[in-house]
């Protein structure tokens, strides 16, 4: 409408120059502007209103809408035809322009919201665009980064060697191919801090297939890197533990809560005689004497309650049927959520110790029941053992008391002991 008023005003201003000639000429511009700005409907309106106004004002006889002259009718037809062409072409151009800008907007929003960082450059490697993620990873705000050379904003070096890495975008531009980045690349941010990245670059081609720029897509892999380190650390610990278990002299066994043997170390092979292949997958009753099978239920019950069983002395069975004296330490195995899923069992052969204990008991019984004074002292003459009869003969109450009494004091006559 404003355009219409303007052109009518323009024609009126030009009236002294043009006289009665070309009464409708300025309307074409108004129609073109209307179709470009508002589409075909306002354009048609502008054409009709414009014609009526101009006819009334500029076509003689001025001041009347007179269609009686043949020239006026021909003029009208020509005007309508021209306006029709302007509107059809104008509308088509406008629609395609709208579509293109919608697509651009969609792409822009997509790139802004994508999880990876995106930077695009022109063929000279100057930055034309970077998305939010790229801004935050590089530390360069969009306003400062656009127009800068890519190397300045996307400054990368090899992590262990600190050598500069060839920018993948440069290679993609030069060779026209998609380029992935070598591992162990770190990006130096604007503030000098570092960030490990994984990236790739691809040339951007226009409709004719010519390289018109480059798109660089990259990602902050610090979290991923950390997780990998952690995993590697855990693996190392697991290997270390496995080698400790394997080289231990004690038998170390793990079993599920239903008693199925899951691991069996070299110590277990030596102690029980069964190889790991024979034992794994079998029920633990493989090594429990039938009369002691009830113990297993009690052990499982305390494991389920999350309790350890320590130094539980019992008897177990070897592959050759021999009974062996053992001391068991059993601990619950918990999964990540803390649920008891099995048990580890350390089995120590105490057969030797039991024999030694029995021997010792015999000797102690012999000595303590003797009526002779039996004692021992160190080379300085301080007693460290006196038997019961000995204590009675000299009137001492305990070995402890005897140990504070030099042997020389036991006698009426002084005798020298220390040499």
């Amino acid at each position: 409408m404003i355009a219409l008023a303007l052109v009518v005003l323009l024609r009126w201003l030009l009236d002294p120059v043009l006289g009665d000639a070309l009464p409708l000429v300025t309307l074409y511009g108004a129609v073109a502007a209307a179709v470009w700005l508002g589409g075909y409907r306002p354009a048609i309106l502008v054409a009709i209103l414009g014609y009526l106004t101009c006819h009334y004002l500029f076509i003689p006889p001025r001041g009347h809408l007179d269609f009686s002259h043949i020239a006026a009718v021909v003029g009208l037809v020509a005007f309508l035809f021209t306006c029709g062409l302007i509107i059809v072409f104008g509308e088509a151009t406008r629609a395609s322009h709208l579509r293109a800008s919608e697509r651009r907007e969609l792409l822009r929003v997509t790139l802004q919201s994508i999880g990876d960082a995106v930077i695009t450059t022109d063929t000279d490697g100057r930055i034309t665009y970077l998305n939010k993620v790229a801004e935050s990873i590089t530390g360069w705000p969009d306003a400062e980064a656009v127009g800068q050379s890519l190397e300045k904003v996307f400054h990368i070096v090899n992590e262990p060697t600190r050598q500069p890495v060839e920018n993948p975008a440069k290679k993609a531009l030069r060779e026209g191919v998609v380029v992935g980045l070598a591992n162990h690349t770190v990006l130096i941010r604007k503030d000098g801090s570092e960030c490990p990245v994984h990236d790739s670059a691809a040339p951007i081609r226009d409709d004719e297939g010519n390289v018109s720029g480059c798109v660089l897509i990259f990602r902050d892999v610090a979290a991923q890197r950390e997780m990998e380190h952690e995993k590697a650390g855990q693996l190392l610990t697991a290997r270390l533990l496995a080698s400790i278990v394997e080289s231990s002299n004690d038998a170390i066994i793990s079993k599920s809560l239903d008693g199925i043997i899951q691991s069996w170390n070299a110590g277990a092979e030596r102690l029980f005689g069964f190889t790991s292949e024979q034992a794994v997958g079998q029920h633990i009753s493989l090594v429990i004497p039938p009369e002691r099978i009830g113990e297993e239920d009690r052990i499982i019950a305390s494991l389920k309650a999350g309790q350890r069983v320590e130094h539980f002395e019992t008897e177990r069975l070897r592959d050759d049927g021999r009974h062996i004296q053992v001391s068991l330490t059993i601990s619950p195995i918990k999964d990540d959520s803390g649920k008891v899923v099995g048990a580890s069992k350390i089995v120590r052969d105490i057969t030797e110790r039991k024999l030694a204990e029995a021997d010792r008991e015999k000797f102690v019984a012999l000595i303590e029941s003797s009526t002779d004074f039996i004692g021992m002292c160190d080379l300085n003459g301080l007693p460290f053992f006196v038997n019961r009869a000995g204590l009675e003969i000299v009137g001492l109450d305990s070995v402890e008391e005897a140990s504070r009494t030099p042997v020389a004091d036991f006698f009426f006559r002084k005798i020298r002991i220390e040499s």
Partner: protein
Amino acid sequence: MNEFFPGVMETGHGELEIRFRHFKTGEARWMAYKVLKLIDAKGEPYAFATVSQEVTERKRLADDLIRLATDLSEADRRKE
């Protein structure tokens, strides 16, 4: 007497009749005191051990016998 333990160190054992004292009553007990030198796996001495028998009673009997014998010989002399 002071040669006893050095003797045990040298020969590995020794024997002596000696009176032990009762720490509470102060009473004397005659003991046949037998001492051994204990050596470790490397052959180094590390302790002394004793297995001693009380001989107070035997000693008393012996003393009685001696006294009896003395008395008898005294009586013999008086007869002469």
